[in-house]
C-alpha cells in the first residue's frame, strides 16, 4: 500500500478522495453499494438554515462531456440534518464536512453556530461529529445568495469574516469558477482565516429548447460539471494553489485515478469527486484502487512526492 495520507488544518484524511457536496447525499445511499469508510472524506448535500424545496422544472440536462444541474439547494435544513443524518455520520470514519449554503449573511452565521454547537455536544459525548464546514458561496442555482456572494471579492469577504468568527471548526470556502478573479478571492479567504479553499464549483451554463423557444431550466441558467470542465478547473486549482499557504481541495470532472494525480500535481491537498458518482455508483472505491495501482506502477511512495510539482 502507498501512503495516501493528507492533512487539512490538523485533520487527517486517510486518502485524498473526498465526495463532493450535492452528489453524495449524506452518504447512506452509497453505503449500500460499497464500504464508504474507505473514503478520505464526504461533503454533505448543501444545507441551509431552513429547509428548501429547490427549483421547479427540469433539474438535469446532459451535455457533451458533462451535465448541467438546477437542483437549487433542495435540502431538509440544518436542524433535520443534525437530528436525522448525524445518527449515520456518528458511525462512519471519513472526514465529515458540512456544506453550508445561505441566502444572506445571517443565515450563514446562524447555520455555522448551530453546527458548531452540535459538534461540541457530540464531542463531549465522545461521538463522531462534523469535522469541517465548507462554506458554499458559489451555488449558481439559487436566485438570492449563493453565487451572488462568490463573484465579487469584497462581498465574499464579509461572509467569510462573519462565519469565521462564528465557528471554531476548520473552515473551507468553496469558490465559484464564475468569480471575477478566483486567485484574488482565494487570497482573501486566507486573509480572513479560512483553513482551506475548495474549487471549483459548477460553471454557470445554459440550454435552450429551440422548439419551445425558452430555456429548459426554470431558473434560466444551470451549473455545468463533469469531464468537460476538468481542464479549466485544473488550471484554476494550479493558479490558486501556488498563491496560498493554506491547502486546496481541487475538483472538476475527475473520473480516473490519473485525473486525481493531475490535481495533486497542480497543488491540491485532496480532491473532491462529484459528477462521477452518477456515472459509477462505486466511484470512490474504484478511484482509490486505481490510485494505489498508479502509484505502485510509477513507484510513488507518498502523494507529498508529487504534490504541487507543476510550477
Amino acid at each position: 500500500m502507498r501512503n495516501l495520507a493528507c492533512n487539512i488544518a490538523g485533520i487527517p484524511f486517510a486518502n485524498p478522495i473526498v465526495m463532493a457536496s450535492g452528489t453524495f447525499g449524506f452518504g447512506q445511499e452509497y453505503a449500500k453499494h460499497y464500504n464508504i469508510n474507505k473514503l478520505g472524506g464526504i461533503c454533505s448535500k448543501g444545507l441551509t438554515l431552513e429547509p428548501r424545496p429547490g427549483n421547479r422544472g427540469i433539474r438535469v440536462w446532459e451535455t457533451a462531456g458533462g451535465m448541467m444541474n438546477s437542483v437549487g439547494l433542495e435540502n431538509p435544513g440544518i436542524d433535520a440534518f443534525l437530528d436525522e443524518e448525524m445518527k449515520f455520520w456518528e458511525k462512519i470514519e471519513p472526514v465529515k464536512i458540512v456544506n453550508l449554503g445561505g441566502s444572506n449573511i445571517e443565515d450563514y452565521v446562524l447555520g455555522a453556530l448551530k453546527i458548531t454547537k452540535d459538534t461540541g455536544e457530540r464531542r463531549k459525548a465522545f461521538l463522531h461529529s462534523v469535522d469541517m464546514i465548507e462554506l458554499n458561496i458559489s451555488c449558481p442555482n439559487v436566485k438570492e445568495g449563493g453565487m451572488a456572494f462568490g463573484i465579487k471579492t469584497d462581498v465574499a469577504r464579509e461572509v467569510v469574516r462573519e462565519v469565521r468568527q462564528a465557528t471554531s471548526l476548520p473552515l473551507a470556502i468553496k469558490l465559484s469558477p464564475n468569480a471575477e478573479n478566483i486567485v484574488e478571492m482565494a487570497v482573501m479567504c486566507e486573509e480572513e482565516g479560512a483553513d482551506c479553499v475548495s474549487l471549483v464549483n459548477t460553471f454557470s451554463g445554459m440550454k435552450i429548447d429551440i422548439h419551445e423557444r425558452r430555456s429548459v431550466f426554470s431558473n434560466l441558467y444551470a451549473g455545468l460539471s463533469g469531464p468537460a470542465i476538468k481542464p479549466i478547473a485544473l488550471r484554476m486549482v494550479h493558479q490558486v494553489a501556488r498563491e496560498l499557504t493554506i491547502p486546496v481541495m481541487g475538483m472538476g470532472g475527475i473520473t480516473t485515478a490519473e485525473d486525481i494525480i493531475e490535481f495533486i500535481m497542480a497543488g491540491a491537498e485532496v480532491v473532491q469527486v462529484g459528477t462521477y458518482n452518477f456515472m459509477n455508483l462505486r466511484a470512490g472505491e474504484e478511484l482509490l484502487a486505481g490510485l494505489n495501482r498508479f502509484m505502485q506502477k510509477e513507484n510513488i511512495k507518498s502523494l507529498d512526492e508529487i504534490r504541487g510539482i507543476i510550477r
Partner: protein
Amino acid sequence: MYNILSNERICEGIYLMTVEGAFQEARMGQFFMLRAWQDAPLLSRPISIFNKEHNHIQFLYKIAGEGTRLLAALRPGDSIQLEGPLGNGFPDVMGRTALIGGGIGIAPLFYTAKQLDKPDIYLGFQQESYLTQAFEPYANELVVRIGGSVLDDLDLSRYENVFVCGPLGMMKAAARMAEGLDTKVYVSLEKRMACGIGACYVCSITNTDGNRKVCTDGPVFLAEEVKWDAELSL
C-alpha cells in the same frame, strides 16, 4: 457486467431486452439503472422491470434519446451494466385490482400482473398495440384500446385498487376519476434521474406533504398525494 441474450425490436421505436443473470428479489414496479457505455452519455438510464425469471430479466423500452438509441443498438452477447432493483414499487394490496397502461407505460405492468391474482388489465395505445398477448394468461379481463383514452372504457368504482403507468395527463385523469370513490389509485411516475439512489435530488416531485424523490420514495405514489398541477406545468 451482464450478458445480453436478446434485444428484440417489437415495433417502431419499441425494444425488449433480455439480460442473463439471477437477480435478487425484485418487487413489482421497481427499476434498474442501465448503462452500456463508458463516458457518453454521462448518465445511466432508469428502466422499469418488464419481466423477471430465475435466470434472466427483461426490459421493455422506447427510444427517446441518445441513451435508449445506444441501448437499442446492442446485440446478443454484448455486455451491459445493471444497478438494481431500485425504487419503491407497487404495494401489496388486497381486493379487486385493475392495471392501466398507456403506451410504453405498460412496461412495469407485466411483471406486476404476474405477481397479482388475475387483475383486470387495460392497455391503451395511440397507433399500434404491442405485447398485449403476453398479458392474457395473467388477466381476468384484458381490454386493449388503440386511439382515444383507455380510461373511457373503465369504471374505477369496480376496483379497490388501480395501478396506472402512462403519460402524466392520463395518470392525472385516473386520479380525478377516483375522487369521491373508495378506490385507491397508485401511479408510477417517470422523471429525469442522475444517481437513481436518492442522493442527488434531481428527480423530486411535489407531493401534498412536500418534495418526494421519484427514485427512492417512488416511482410509485398514491395518486391523491401527487400535486398534479405542479407536475403537469413542468
